[in-house]
Each structure stands twice: as C-alpha cells, then as structure tokens.
C-alpha cells in the first residue's frame, strides 16, 4: 500500500490488510472510496485490540476490489471525527501503474458491503429514478402477495425504518424486505403455506428464489439491467412467541402487526404493520431512532436454533460454493477430469449422462462433446450459469437444473427427470458425496436408485478417501466445502440402498483443482433389483 497525499497526520492507518484506529475509537465508523460509501463497522464490536490500537481486516467480499488508486476516508459516522483521509494505492501496484480503484458490479454500479458481509448495491448510490422503480415494484409485489397470495403482507426492516425515521430509503440499505403474518401454528403448515404463496407469485409472472422453508426472494428486474431482490419473510406465533424471519423472535402483541396500516415512502404508499414503531422497536431495539449503518442484528439464540431446525438446512453450502467460484473459478481446469476420462469408455456411445454436482461444467461439457446427451445438476447458481454457458458452446441439447440434495422436492423431481430421459442413462458424481451431510448423502442414493431403476445404467462416484496412511482428517480441497470419507462406509451405505459395487479403484488422485490428492476412490455402482440382500430403506 502506498500513500500518495494526505491531510495532516491522521490518527488512523491503512494497509492492504486492513485498518488501524486509535484505541478510543468508538461508535460507528464509515469507510468511503472517492466519496462513495463502501463499508461501516463498530470498532468496539468488530475490531481487535492490539496494544493501544484497534485493528480490523478488510471484509473478504471487498478484498478482490482493493487494487488501485483511491481517496480513502475513514470517519466516525456521527461525530465526523476523521481517522484517515488520504489518497492511497492498494494492492501492490506502483503509483505510475495504478488504475482507479473501483468497487462496482459488471454494469459499473457502485457496490458496498451490506450488513451480512456481501457486496451489493445500496440505495445511497441509486439514482432517484431507480429508487422510484424499486418502490413501485415493491408495491406491485405487495399487491400480489395480498391478492393472489392471500396473505397480509407488509413492509418491514430497512424500508420500514427509513419510511418512519426519515421518509426515505436508508442510504446504506440494499434491498426491500416484506413480511406476512401466517395463520399457521405449526412449522409444517407454515412451510406449506410459503410454498403456496410462492406459487401464487409465480402464477403472477414473477421469478422467485426459495431461501428456506419460510422465505423466498422475488426478483424485480430494473430498467438499468440490475435485479433487485425483494425478500418475502413469514412471521408466525407459536406457543405465545412471535417468530419473524430473518431471525427475530420474542414478544410482540398481534395488535402491533395486524390489521396492517399504510405508510408513505418517497411518495409511494405501502402496507405497513399496524404499529410500525412497535415493530421497529422489536426488530432493532429501543435505539432504532438513531441511525447506525453498522447495525448488526443480535437475535435470540434459542429462537435462531428453532428457526434453523424447522425451516433451514437445504442450501447452507450455497454461499460457500458461490464464493469459491467467484474468487477461484479460474483455478478450476476446463478440460475433462481424469475421472471423466475413466468413465467415458465404460458407457455406451450415445448414453445420457446426468452429472450431479457439475460445478463449472468441465466434465458435463466433455461428455457432451463426446456425443452424450447431458443433464447437469448443481446447487450453486453460479455453477449452473457457468455450466450452461459451456454446454451452449457444445451445441447439444443438454440441460442444466437445480438440485439441492438436502431438499426432497428437487431430489425427487431430478430422479424422475433422469429416469425418463432415455433408456440408456448413467449418473455421474465427482466429489459430490464428500460435499454433503449424511441425510443429503442418503438422498443421493435414493435419487440414483430412482434415476437408474429399470435400466442397466451405473452410478459413477469419485471421492477423496482415507486409507491406512491417509487419515480421515487429512486435508481435502476445497477446504471447508469437501470432506474425506471412509470408502468402506460409503460402500456399505450404498448397499443398504440396493446398490451393488461392480468396480472399485483406489489410488492417489486429483482434487477439484487437479492438484494431487493423496487417496481417492472411484466406484461404479448398479442398482439391480434382482440382487438379493441389503436392507431396503425409504
């Protein structure tokens, strides 16, 4: 990091790793690049004491952008105390070579770090026309939720806070959050209702993304090409406790929620809770009237645990994979893996291949290029986008679809899609079995059994494995996303589900990046219904 010019001796310091502030720094600190808001934090909560100083690292989501020249300002949001105000060059370039540092999306729109650590556009950097478009779109979503969806939906969270406190969107906010109070009193009925409401929105022509059993996002396409995500969260009462997604729980009288009132936000009238101030106090605490761009929710842990158990778990790994593909996608080789080349001579020339956990599509594209119809599945939207792009270049009629092994609906429909795709078909899964939890792994066997029923096709698996010299805890890549497994236990589990291992090879192999893995196992499995033994399992 190089300092080009500065104000009088600042009390803060900056380098490529992060910031250093005086030990008495408190309140809320905002960070701007060239006058544009980028990030905020609370030193007392987020920084680490290092002697007489407080230090904090740059957010991970921001790091890929920290290359180039910028005017960096670090200041207390309320008092205006300036810690850093200087022109700097980040990322190792010399002053002559450095380009302008930009924290922008592909369309050139400014981004900032939101309250969950992701980079997103914020309303402060959105022009008035786009803000109006977002609000009018949000109003249409609310109309459809309350009409076709049949639920008492209302504005909440950041947009409600901005409406009540300032009459305008909060500059550091980035999306619109809506809630509806469910009449259901059991989690299973809450989930069933959320499915129904989402289908009603699909019937109205909206695109959606399901996030949990109790919430989904409605995609609002804007004229500037951006997509604004409108969260639709369920709220419900259970045993006297009010639960409201994201993660809020506690005491809030029903009269504070319904019947809904209305509120005006930047000229647009929107449904709101019956008592907006009571709702804001419930959501943000008693200090909700004081602006705090670094606000973080402190949700009751017992309520979070209950919501996690009832409603979540089917897509926990998605953020990790998306982050991996965005930061290290270029490190994943594009040509066929060794495992794909191992499988190719073992299948018929025009057999259909279902690639589960297709990643960026290197093997799906290989099989397509060899003349096989390909059905590619992955949980990560970034992976599906990359695979679809790669398969389009092959010119085949291959398809790419979403598969969440932790969610029975996509498991069942994927199994049925593969089973009805072609007479001669196989299921291919490289690395997948080491990326999922135990229940998802069992769903993988159920899916394969369904997909291959009545055919002579095989399930082909490759996994990072343990041996006498390679323990289970030996590192496997990518770290944190893939585990090494005991191949014998995997085989026993497969056999429980009616599978029969017809080929097994174990040797040093390669990981996701084609770097050496000390021990891998390759399996070819058939699900022959005439094979005796094994314990049938649902």
């Amino acid at each position: 990091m190089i300092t080009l010019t500065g104000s009088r001796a600042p009390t803060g310091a900056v380098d490529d790793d992060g910031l250093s502030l005086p030990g008495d720094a408190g309140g809320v600190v905002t960070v701007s690049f060239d006058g544009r808001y980028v990030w905020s934090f609370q030193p007392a909560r987020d920084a680490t004491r290092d002697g007489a100083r407080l230090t904090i690292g740059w957010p991970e989501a921001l790091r890929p952008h920290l290359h180039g020249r910028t005017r960096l300002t670090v200041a207390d949001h309320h008092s205006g105390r300036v810690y850093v105000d200087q022109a700097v060059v980040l990322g190792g370039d010399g002053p002559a070579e450095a380009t302008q540092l930009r924290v922008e999306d592909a369309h050139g729109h400014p981004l900032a770090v939101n309250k969950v650590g992701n980079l997103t556009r914020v309303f402060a950097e959105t022009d008035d026309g786009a803000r109006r478009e977002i609000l009018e779109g949000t109003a249409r979503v609310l109309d459809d939720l309350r009409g076709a969806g049949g639920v008492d939906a209302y504005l909440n969270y950041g947009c409600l806070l901005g409406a009540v406190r300032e009459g305008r969107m909060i500059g550091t906010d980035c999306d619109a959050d809506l809630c509806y109070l469910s009449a259901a009193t059991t989690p299973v009925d809450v989930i069933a209702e959320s499915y129904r409401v989402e289908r009603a929105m699909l019937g109205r022509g909206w695109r959606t993304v399901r996030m949990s059993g109790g919430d989904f996002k409605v995609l609002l396409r804007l004229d500037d090409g951006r997509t604004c995500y409108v969260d639709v969260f369920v709220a419900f009462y259970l045993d006297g406790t009010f639960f409201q997604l994201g993660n809020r729980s506690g005491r809030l009288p029903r009269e504070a929620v319904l019947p809904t009132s209305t509120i005006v936000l930047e000229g647009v009238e929107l449904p709101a809770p019956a008592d907006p101030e009571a709702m804001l106090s419930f959501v943000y605490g008693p200090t909700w009237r004081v602006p705090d761009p670094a606000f973080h929710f402190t949700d009751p842990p017992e309520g979070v645990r209950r919501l996690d158990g009832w409603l979540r778990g089917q897509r926990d790994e998605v953020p990790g994979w998306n982050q991996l593909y965005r930061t290290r996608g270029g490190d994943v080789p594009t040509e066929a893996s060794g495992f794909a080349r191992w499988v190719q001579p073992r299948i018929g020339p025009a057999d259909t291949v279902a690639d589960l956990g297709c990643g960026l599509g290197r093997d799906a594209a290989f099989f397509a290029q060899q003349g096989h119809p390909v059905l590619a599945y992955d949980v990560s939207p970034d992976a599906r986008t990359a695979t679809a792009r790669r398969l389009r270049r092959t010119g085949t009629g291959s398809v790419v679809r979403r598969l969440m092994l932790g969610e029975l609906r996509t498991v069942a429909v994927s199994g049925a899609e593969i089973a009805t795709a072609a007479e001669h078909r196989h299921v291919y899964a490289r690395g997948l079995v080491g990326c999922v939890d135990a229940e998802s792994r069992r769903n993988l066997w159920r899916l394969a059994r369904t997909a291959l029923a009545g055919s002579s096709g095989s399930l082909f698996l490759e996994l990072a494995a343990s041996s006498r010299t390679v323990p289970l805890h030996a590192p496997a890549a990518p770290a944190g996303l893939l585990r090494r497994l005991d191949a014998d236990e995997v085989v026993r589990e497969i056999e429980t589900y009616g599978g029969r291992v017809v080929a097994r090879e174990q040797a040093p192999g390669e990981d996701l990046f084609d770097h050496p893995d000390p021990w891998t196992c390759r399996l070819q499995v058939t699900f022959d219904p005439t094979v005796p033994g094994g314990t049938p399992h649902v």
Partner: protein
Amino acid sequence: MSELRSRARGAAVRLRASTGTAERLRRLEEEVQENRRLNRRLAELTDLVTELLVPLSRRDDAQGEEVLVRYRSII
C-alpha cells in the same frame, strides 16, 4: 494432605458430573434439532404427493413429462 486429597477428589467428581451433564444436554439439543428438521421433510413430502404424484397418477405416460416440467417450474 488427606484433606487436600479429599477436596481434589471431590472436585474431580463434580467435574465429571458437570461434563457428563453438559454432554447429555448437547445430545439432547441435537435430538430436538433432529425432530425439528422433520417439519421441513414432512412439508416437502406432502408437496411431492399433492403436486407431483397425484397429478402423475391422473395422466398417462405421454403426459407424465408435462407434469414433471410443471413441477420443476414451481419448486
């Protein structure tokens, strides 16, 4: 010394008891969480039956693909 040894022994017994209790609580919380997860599984299975299997049972083989395509579009 014997008093010290006795106090040390007592402390060890209490530590084992608290550790055992903590472990039992941890397992109990895991079991509760396991049961909570059944809510989503039941909702998913119900949805599969009502929105996929029942429509499939009403159609012939040629229309089965339409049912699959429709279900894929609404999940």
